[in-house]
């Protein structure tokens, strides 16, 4: 398929362990593994943007969209092994890893487990830490209209999304992705109690991107990641909600590319 921006996106079907994975891929350059948020996978203008400089790999997590759910993947720890296996299959020794929200949690766990396989790390409003005094919003209990208004800061975007009445197939697709999300994140809710004490292992230069109006993941999470990871910095994206690349794709793309194009030891802002 070709996107509006004229990017040619390939769909690859890979056998990873017991299940088939859908991998969307485009661009050229060093490999960039994108780990999607709980809403599901797919290709967006943000992916178009980063594919100008990277070979972008955007798989659906097992159980989401077009990747099969398997018995062997039942938690975020399993997802880490799943993605290491995927990188092995693709012959990629080291990749830049970008994860959003739930995907940010997976990205952080992956970088903790195998620090040497991560070139640079981008955590967009990442979940994963256990901060009892500032827990994430319970997305599972929100009715659809409240969920959309929680994800987006821009009321006009939320309103336009809610204008269209979902079909039965739409509702079942959302339930399908929510089921996969719940399998991994119901309890402990969106966190791994042991993650924080292991973050010292991450050696990749890390950008933590947090939107100013995030109503899902409190700022404390982004700050804790940025403070605990050795080579990390926090960037606040103004006038944006948790949906990030879904809400402000251009600004998010610019911020991510600026970070990724800076020298390893340079201080490019």
């Amino acid at each position: 398929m070709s996107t509006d921006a004229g990017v040619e996106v390939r769909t690859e079907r890979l056998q990873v362990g017991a299940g088939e994975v859908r991998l969307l891929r485009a661009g050229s350059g060093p490999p960039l593994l994108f780990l999607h948020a709980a809403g599901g996978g797919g290709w967006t203008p943000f992916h178009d943007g980063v594919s100008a400089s990277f070979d972008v790999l955007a798989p659906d997590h097992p159980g989401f969209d077009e990747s099969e759910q398997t018995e062997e993947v039942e938690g975020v720890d399993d997802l880490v092994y799943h993605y290491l296996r995927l990188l092995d299959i693709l012959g990629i020794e080291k990749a830049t890893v970008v994860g959003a929200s739930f995907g940010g949690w997976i990205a952080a766990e992956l970088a903790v487990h195998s620090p040497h396989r991560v070139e640079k790390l981008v955590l967009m409003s990442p979940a994963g830490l256990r901060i009892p005094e500032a827990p994430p919003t319970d997305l599972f209990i929100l009715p659809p209209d409240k969920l959309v208004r929680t994800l987006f800061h821009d009321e006009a975007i939320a309103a336009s999304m809610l204008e269209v009445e979902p079909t039965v197939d739409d509702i079942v697709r959302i339930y399908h992705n929510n089921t996969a999300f719940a399998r991994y994140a119901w309890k402990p809710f969106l966190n791994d109690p042991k993650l924080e004490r292991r973050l010292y292992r991450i050696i990749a230069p890390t950008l933590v991107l947090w939107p100013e109006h995030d109503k899902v993941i409190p700022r404390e999470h982004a700050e804790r990641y940025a403070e605990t990871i050795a080579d990390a910095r926090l960037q606040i994206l103004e006038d944006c909600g948790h949906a990030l690349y879904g809400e402000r794709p251009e600004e998010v793309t610019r911020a991510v590319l600026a970070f990724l194009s800076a020298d390893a030891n340079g201080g490019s802002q």
Partner: protein
Amino acid sequence: MKFNFFHLMPYPTLPDDFDERFSSPSLTYPSGQFDPEVGMEAYDRYLGELEYADQLGYDGICVNEHHQSAYGMMPSPNIMAAALARRTSKAKVMVLGNAIGLRDHPLRVAEEIAMLDHVTKGRVVSGFVRGIGWEYFGHSINPVLSRERFNEAHDLIVKAWTSEDVFQWWGKHYEFRYVNIWPRPVQRPHPDIYIPGAGSTETMKYCAEKRYTFMSVYAPNSTVKRWFDGYRSACADLGYEPDPEKIGFAIPIYVAETHEQAHREARHHVEFLFHKMLKQGPEIVLPPGYMSESSLAGLLKGGAGAFSRLSYDDLVDRGMVLVGSPESVTEQLERMRDELGFGQIMALMCIGDTPHHRVVRTMELFANEVAPNFRSAEREPEAVPA
């Protein structure tokens, strides 16, 4: 036909501005709304009603499990069954059921039911349920795992009841190196197991294979017919026809001296049950993974909507409640029995906020003037004692 008196033990009142202030009486309805004085009186009254059902000759008295809800105040149905055990003597004490999908320690259920079987002298019926969607929020149990936890807990409990020696259990969700319950149940091989279904073909097959009693939940007659037909056809696939008593029909019943009086009085209580006590959004009823995607698609295509959208007349017309004089209730029940083919009913007579004297009147009129019509039709010798 067997007649069972079913109780939900609802919290008996809700504030006048409940509709405006609260999204549901379940999960998030603040416990500050619970007045212990009201609670004490309600438990005493409800247990008394269940005991009276035994005296009136109902075949079973039923309790069930709900959590964090004004809809039903029995987080532990086994405690209520224990309270009834030595104050009743004839009726089966039906726990419908323990929400074993929610339990982290199913052996406790095996032990408690076995104890109850002794104290009731073999009168216990053991229902098993998965637990309602909102209870997976309340218990922090992953709803995606609900069915497999239920199945494993069931297998473990039945094995614990029937094994005569110590065994080990190495399951996905439960692991025990020494299973050896004392006491084991009185009834052999174990107390009867009842399971409610709400349209899942998986549950119908499960009950058919294990020869368990299959019960309905509140739904229109046309829907319940599909479920019961599904259960019968699952039995037929296995080469047998189920005894009608293996099919239990759950329905709220309200009886008064005349048809008009019954409807005039019942309307408020029925609306209280369906519009307030069952006010609950799909997000708490169907958490992710609780239902299979095919069942969800079927539900949506079938146009299932919230109870709150059904008026009192809709509820009556669809056979979701049974209201009238003894004569009209007899006629309606005959029609439903002929259409649906059940051999047991689980009658909810304390509907919503129905006051005690009205519950008692329904119980008496039903036991004395409705039930005998069905018993004599089946030429059962013992009449219902007054």
